[in-house]
């Protein structure tokens, strides 16, 4: 049963990562499935939660594995950061008073924003934004906005 549950968990994580990141999956090709298993094991070992930040954890892990061709490609980074921002916007239990998140990527000097919908039928929108990037070195950062008040930048 433990093997079956582990297999099931790997499938769930695979979908939770790649359903929102098809370009990344395409770039990794046949390596994607075994990599996901190693990624899960690494997260468990380091006690990293696969929550709304899972796409950023995945990006960082790819970097640690030396997969720089993939992890440094601007389109891949944009896709993974957009997925992360979107996951935040969909989860109303995190920072419930905040309506928007901005994620900044010092490597590509780009920032993405996602807004939580205020209407039932409205979809989460993720877009590029212009903003002053934090002086965080190579660290990915995010800040949230509630009633136009921006939080400090936090490391992702």
């Amino acid at each position, binding site marked *: 049963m433990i093997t079956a*549950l582990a297999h099931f968990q790997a499938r*769930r994580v695979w979908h939770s990562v790649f359903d929102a990141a098809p370009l990344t999956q395409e770039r990794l090709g046949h390596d994607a499935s075994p990599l996901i298993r190693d990624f899960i094991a690494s997260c468990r070992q380091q006690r990293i939660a696969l929550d709304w930040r899972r796409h950023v954890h995945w990006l960082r892990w790819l970097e640690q594995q030396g997969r720089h061709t993939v992890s440094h490609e601007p389109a891949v980074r944009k896709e993974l950061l957009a997925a992360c921002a979107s996951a935040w916007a*969909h989860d109303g239990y995190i920072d419930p008073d905040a309506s928007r998140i901005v994620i900044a990527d010092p490597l590509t000097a780009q920032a993405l924003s996602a807004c*939580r919908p*205020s*209407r*039932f*039928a*409205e979809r989460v929108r993720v877009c590029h934004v212009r903003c002053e990037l934090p002086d965080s070195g190579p660290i990915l950062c995010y800040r949230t906005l509630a009633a136009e008040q921006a939080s400090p930048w936090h490391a992702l």
Partner: protein
Amino acid sequence: MADSMHGIGVNLTRRSQIDPVRQMIEDGSADHVEVLIDNFLSCEPASIRDSLGDIPLSLHIMRSRFLERPAADLPALGTRLRAFIRELQPFAVSDHCARFTEQGLPLAMLAEVDYRNSRTLCTRIAGWQEALDHPLLLENFPSLGEEGRAQPAFFAEAAARCGSGLLFDLSNALIAAHNGGAVLEDWYPHLATVHHLHCGGYSMLDNSPLRIDSHDRPLADDSWQALAQLLDAGRLPRLGSLTLEFDHDIDYPAWRRDLARARTQLAGRGS
């Protein structure tokens, strides 16, 4: 149906389902909609009515994690949900008695609580119900093993201590029975007071004999048989709603067929 105000309905978990569900309301396939409110917490509550009209609604909560959160967080969370309850006047509000994390990390699959801690669990249920300021229904768990055998007794204890009700998920009960948990007959004493029923498709856990609650396909034959058996035996005398759940790989024509079949099955059965 005895309390037949709400009939047969569907669950709505994502925005992409809104238009197809509206069509199911308009063509008479669905009499009510159960909204998974977790995914719409940032919405103005009235915007839900703007989209779905005045059809009866119930609110289902999945990720409140009211058993695991710091107790101090529950009043604020309850305040947010009460705004939806006040605006939408749902005929039922339900949540799950389950574990979402282990040692602080999210589980890929919900785990069953340890019913031996019933006193602590009941304190939390009572606190959550108070925060919601609404009667709370708890859904039975699709047990993976024999630890689930204590589930019906726990639900009886929770009802007695906290006044919480049972949202009886028939397919979960069948999954649990198959996996070594409580058998359907163990639930019979509860069913006389059950108003709201869930049923969804299930699948097998990969390379194992276990069933899991996957909501990715139409209802299984044994779910239909069990529903007929319960109705024929008059074991659901207060049934007020039946929600057929479909969350993943949604096959809308198949869902409609299931809704029509359920309607036929319930019609004239005197329950």
